[in-house]
């Protein structure tokens, strides 16, 4: 039984890993020359409700990737405005670690393989076509192609290609596989009712900052300084994808996090203005390269799906990550990717796919996002354990806790301890 995972970001890696652990032959296809996609420039884990979700994944038996990000963390248990107990993984270390881990598990990883079309038979996908026309057959398919870019979308809905880590011009554009299979994409919206949303952070080259800032980042993981009043731009919060960081503090302050790069918690920031700030006189961008001007546009390609993450209308296509909903973050991608990979195997051997229980945050967020996406307001929201509406919901429902033994107990009471470690084949 062969599972093909399309897209090698965090969700795709999680899906491939889970499908392999559940016993399938797995091929992971990635458009670029690196796995992890936007995970190569992210790094924030375990902040706010993500802590709970990470621990739930570990107890469910899907903690492999969380272990890697924990191991690769430069800073643990740090606080920054609106966020507590965050870990920041080192973006320069995590991709090779993940790649080796998947390789050692026996997953066939194919890089620079852009999937452009599907071969359908009734409501099933028989195979997928690579950009050069090669047909790859499979039994079940997981789409984790994300919802970011390509450059035409970043131009129409943003401020143009900002040369981000996805590198569409070099490796070719993302193609929506579900759409090619005949299922229309759904679109997220910005606060001003236009479509899409802009990525919420850019990264500075740490060496371009003053020694003092570098030392603080290396020591504390966080550096905060105020923005000159004339340069404060509250409007930028509305267009931002990461609503957990769309707080007043983020408009009034420069907030840097140390992920190996100096992660600047705003979508973009004009270089001339940035260099007016003490310590930033020589600043330059690491990702996106044109972070002084723009950032990538996301949420233009979300598949309709059920709570088992099967795409509506296609018998053997599942989805994870941003493709599966208006989710933000690595933990959310790992969560949805894992479930999609698991259910791919179940569908492949003729079993009904499963949902995660709503008494766990990892199950509730999938159900909640699906419900909310039906409403216009819901299309403007983003869904993350780390903040905005969903973190408030976690607290209201009593799902949020940092008590590891309590989380363990919850999973145990559901008889789901190590659920994802059991082989299906």
């Amino acid at each position, binding site marked *: 039984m062969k599972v093909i995972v399309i897209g090698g970001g965090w969700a795709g890696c999680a899906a491939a890993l889970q499908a392999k652990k559940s016993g399938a032959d797995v091929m992971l296809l990635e458009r670029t020359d690196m796995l992890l996609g936007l995970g190569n420039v992210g790094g924030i884990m375990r902040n706010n409700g993500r802590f709970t979700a990470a621990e739930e994944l570990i107890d469910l038996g899907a903690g492999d990737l969380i272990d890697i990000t924990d191991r690769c963390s430069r800073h643990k248990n740090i606080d920054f405005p609106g966020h507590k107990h965050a870990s920041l993984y080192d973006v320069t270390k995590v991709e090779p670690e993940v790649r080796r881990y998947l390789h050692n598990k026996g997953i066939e990883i194919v890089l620079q393989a852009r999937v452009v079309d599907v071969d359908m038979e009734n409501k099933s996908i028989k195979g997928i076509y690579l950009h050069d026309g090669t047909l790859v057959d499979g039994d079940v398919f997981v789409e984790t192609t994300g919802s970011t870019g*390509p450059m035409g979308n970043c*131009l129409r809905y943003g401020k143009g290609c900002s040369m981000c880590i996805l590198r569409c011009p070099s490796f070719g554009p993302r193609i*929506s596989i579900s759409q090619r299979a005949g299922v229309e994409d759904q679109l997220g919206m910005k606060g001003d009712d236009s479509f899409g949303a802009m990525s919420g952070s850019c990264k500075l080259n740490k060496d371009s900052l003053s020694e003092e800032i570098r030392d603080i980042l290396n020591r504390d993981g966080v550096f905060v300084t105020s923005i000159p009043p004339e340069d404060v731009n509250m409007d930028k919060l509305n267009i931002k994808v990461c609503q957990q960081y769309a707080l007043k503090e983020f408009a009034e302050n420069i907030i840097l996090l140390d992920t190996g790069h100096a992660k600047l918690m705003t979508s973009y920031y004009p270089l001339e203005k940035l260099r007016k700030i003490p310590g930033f006189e020589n600043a330059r961008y690491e990702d996106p390269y044109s972070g002084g001007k723009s950032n990538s546009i996301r949420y233009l390609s979300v598949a309709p799906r059920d709570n088992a993450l099967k795409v509506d209308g296609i018998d053997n296509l599942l989805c994870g990550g941003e493709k599966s909903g208006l989710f933000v973050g690595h933990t959310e991608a790992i969560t949805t990717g894992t479930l999609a990979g698991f259910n791919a195997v179940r569908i492949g051997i003729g079993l009904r796919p499963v949902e995660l229980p709503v008494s766990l945050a990892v199950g509730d967020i999938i159900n909640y996002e699906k419900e909310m996406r039906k409403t216009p307001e819901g299309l403007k929201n983003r869904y993350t354990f780390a903040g905005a509406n969903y973190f408030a919901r976690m607290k209201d429902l009593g799902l949020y806790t940092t008590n590891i033994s309590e989380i363990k107990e919850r999973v145990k009471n559901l008889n789901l301890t190590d659920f994802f470690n059991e082989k299906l084949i």
Partner: protein
Amino acid sequence: MFRYIDCADYGSEFCPCSLAERGECIICSQLKNQKFCDCLNWKGTCVYQEFIWNNEKSKKSREYRKFRIVEKRYLREDLILLKIKVNQGLARELCNIGAFVFLKPERDIEAYSTPISIMESDIINNIITVVFKIEGVKTKALKECDKEIMVKGPYWNGIQGKKYIEDLKNKSCLIIGRGVALAPAVLAAKKMINNKNNVYVVLDRGRSEEHFTESYFKSYGCVVKPTKICNMNKYILDDTRELLQHLLKKWNYEVVLSAGNDDFHRLILNYIHNLDPYIKFATVNNSTMCCGEGVCGSCQLRGKNNEIIKTCKQQFNPLEVFGEELNSK
């Protein structure tokens, strides 16, 4: 289903063209009445980006320029070879597989524009060589040109399935053709030889004692086998069938380039496809063209899903258009 689709102008100095400006781009969904990216091919540039940065206008299209004829030779009473001195840029742009130009006498109106394939482009002396057969009113007009001629170009869609030839390296290709249609195969052969491929040419001399392309093919290092290929494009002669079977076995061709008219393509392509379904096909483009910009509609044909193909600039997989078995499914 995977679609072999490309636009010969995509990514060139002429892209985006007026089709994009009017929401009819062959490649880009954003420029074909869609609001989202779903491009049908990708070659490293974004047509939409180019369009926006060009102030939402198309790029300037090709225009006629007057050039000097440095040699005019009758290969037969109805077959003329012209060598035209062009500028450096045009010679260079025409030194590509599938290159062609529109030619017309200076005094005639645009309707006399005749698409003619480039047989050779000398990029040192900036001389292009073309061969045309006098068949109708447009080629009769070209015959009148002795010293000067109007040239519009470059165009690049003179061969369908171009990608298969361009991608070929350290492999082997069979060129099979007859008549004036072999002219574009000469330039294609040169490029393939440059890419260290073995090129075998089976050609029909027709009424001539020696085909005008033979010396070119031989000078590049192709193996040339003159033979009578078929009877009125209706059936392939027994001897040629045997020859083809023998060659296919011996050389294990990756690509076959058919250089004849469309009936010839159909005959050759289906015969060889039945012998070896893995061989890829390229065909010289015989479409009737007037504008070369995908606008006038004279070159249009229908693909297997009844979609319109603007063959003056749009690439298709010849097997999908000329393959009988596929089309009857």
